[in-house]
C-alpha cells in the first residue's frame, strides 16, 4: 500500500467519522456542526479526485452558505428540541439500518465492478473545445454541450426563490426578507465584514473569471460573492432589498433570461437553439456568465435570507 493510498484511506475515514457523528449524535446542533465540518472536508476529496471545479463548488457552498443556513436554522429551532417527536422504535431503526447497509454494499460492489477501461467523454469534450474558445472543459460542458441543463437549473433557482417568497405572510408580501440583523458597528463582526467583504469580492470575481480557462466559474464565484453579501448583512452593514423591487427581480432572472435570449438567437440566426457562432462563442458565453454570476450571487443571498418578514420600510443604517 502506497503512502498516498494510506492518506486517502485516512481522509475517507475522517470524513465517514464526521458523517456518522452527523447521523447518530443526539443533539441537533451537534449534528449540524458535524455536517458543516463534513462539508469543509469534502473539498479535499474532490481535489484528490482531480475535480477542482467541484472542489471549489463544495468549498463555497459547504464552507460558507450551508453552514450559515443550517446553523441558523438549528439555533432557531432549538427550543423545539425537547418537544420534538420521539425517535422511531428499535425494530424500525434496525430494519432501516439493515437496508441501508445492504444498499451501501450493493452500491460499493457495483462501483468497484464498473467496466475497464471506463467510458469517458473527456476526449470528445477536449476535441470540441474549439467551438467555444474556452479551455476549461467543465465550463464547456456546462455552457455549450449541456447548456440546456444549465439553463433549466437557473430556472430552478428562480423557482426556489418563488417558493421561499411564497411562504411570506400576506402582510409582509413585497417586503424585505428575513429578520433585520443588528450588530454593534464597532464590534468584531462588523470589523471583519469591513475588511473581508472587499477582499472576498476580488476573490469571487477572480474565481468566476478564471473559470473560462481554469477551474472556477459562475456558480463558484457567485457563491463567494453571496457569502460576502451575507457577511455584510449579518454584521448589520447592509440589508436585503424588498422583494417587490423591480431591479432586484431583473437581476434574479438576468442569468436565465440572457441564456434564453442567446439560445433563441441561435435558433433564429445560427445553427440551433443554444448554439453559438464560433466567432462569437467566447464573448457570448462570457456575457451569459456575467449575468449568471450576478443572478447566482443575488439568488443565493436571498435564499439564505428566507421569506419576506418585514414590510418594505426604508432602511437607515
Amino acid at each position: 500500500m502506497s503512502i498516498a493510498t494510506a492518506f486517502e484511506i485516512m481522509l475517507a475515514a475522517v470524513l465517514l467519522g464526521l458523517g456518522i457523528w452527523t447521523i447518530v449524535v443526539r443533539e441537533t446542533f451537534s449534528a449540524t456542526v458535524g455536517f458543516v465540518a463534513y462539508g469543509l472536508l469534502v473539498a479535499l476529496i474532490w481535489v484528490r479526485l482531480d475535480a477542482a471545479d467541484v472542489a471549489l463548488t463544495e468549498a463555497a457552498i459547504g464552507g460558507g452558505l450551508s453552514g450559515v443556513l443550517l446553523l441558523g436554522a438549528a439555533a432557531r429551532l432549538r427550543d423545539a428540541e425537547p418537544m420534538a417527536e420521539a425517535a422511531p422504535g428499535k425494530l424500525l431503526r434496525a430494519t432501516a439500518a439493515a437496508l441501508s447497509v445492504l444498499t451501501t454494499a450493493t452500491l460499493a460492489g457495483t462501483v468497484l465492478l464498473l467496466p475497464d477501461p471506463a467510458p469517458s467523454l473527456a476526449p470528445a469534450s477536449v476535441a470540441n473545445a474549439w467551438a467555444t474558445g474556452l479551455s476549461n472543459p467543465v465550463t464547456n460542458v456546462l455552457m455549450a454541450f449541456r447548456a440546456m441543463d444549465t439553463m433549466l437549473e437557473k430556472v430552478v433557482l428562480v423557482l426556489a426563490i418563488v417558493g421561499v417568497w411564497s411562504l411570506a405572510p400576506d402582510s409582509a408580501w413585497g417586503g424585505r426578507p428575513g429578520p433585520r440583523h443588528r450588530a454593534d458597528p464597532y464590534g468584531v463582526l462588523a470589523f471583519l465584514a469591513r475588511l473581508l467583504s472587499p477582499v472576498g469580492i476580488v476573490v469571487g470575481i477572480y474565481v468566476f473569471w478564471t473559470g473560462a480557462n481554469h477551474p472556477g466559474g459562475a456558480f463558484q464565484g457567485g457563491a463567494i460573492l453571496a457569502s460576502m453579501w451575507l457577511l455584510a448583512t449579518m454584521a448589520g452593514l447592509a440589508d436585503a432589498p424588498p422583494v417587490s423591487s423591480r431591479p432586484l427581480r431583473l437581476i434574479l432572472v438576468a442569468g436565465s433570461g440572457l441564456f434564453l435570449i442567446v439560445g433563441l438567437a441561435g435558433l433564429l440566426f445560427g445553427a440551433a437553439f443554444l448554439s453559438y457562432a464560433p466567432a462569437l462563442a467566447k464573448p457570448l458565453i462570457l456575457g451569459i456568465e456575467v449575468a449568471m454570476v450576478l443572478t447566482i450571487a443575488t439568488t443565493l443571498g436571498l435564499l439564505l435570507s428566507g421569506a419576506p418578514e418585514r414590510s418594505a420600510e426604508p432602511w437607515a443604517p
Partner: protein
Amino acid sequence: MGTVTVFGLCAAAVVGLGLYGVIANPQPLRKIIAFNLLGSGVFLLFGVIGRRGAVAGIGSDPVPQALVITGVVVAFSATALAIALLLRLFDTAGPATLDSDAPTRPRPDRFGG
C-alpha cells in the same frame, strides 16, 4: 487499492449513512441534513466515475463534474426551500414534526415502539 476504490467505498458508505439518517432521524432538520449527506454521497459517486474516465491531460471526465455542479446547485436550493418551509412551519405551529396528519384526524399510534 487506488483512489477510485477508496473513495468509491467511501461514497457508498456516505449514501448508506444518509439513507439511514433520512429514515431514522426524527427531527425534520436532521432529515434535511441527512438528505444533504445522501446527496453528497451520490455526488462523490459521480466524482469517482469521472475519475475513472480520466484521460491523458484531463484528470477527470468533465461531464460528470458538470453534472455534479448542476446537482449541487439543485440540492442547495432544495435545502434552502426546505429550511424556509420548516422555519415557517415552526413559526405557525410551534415544534415541528412531519408525522402528524391533517388536523381533522387523531394522531396515529406509533408503530414498533
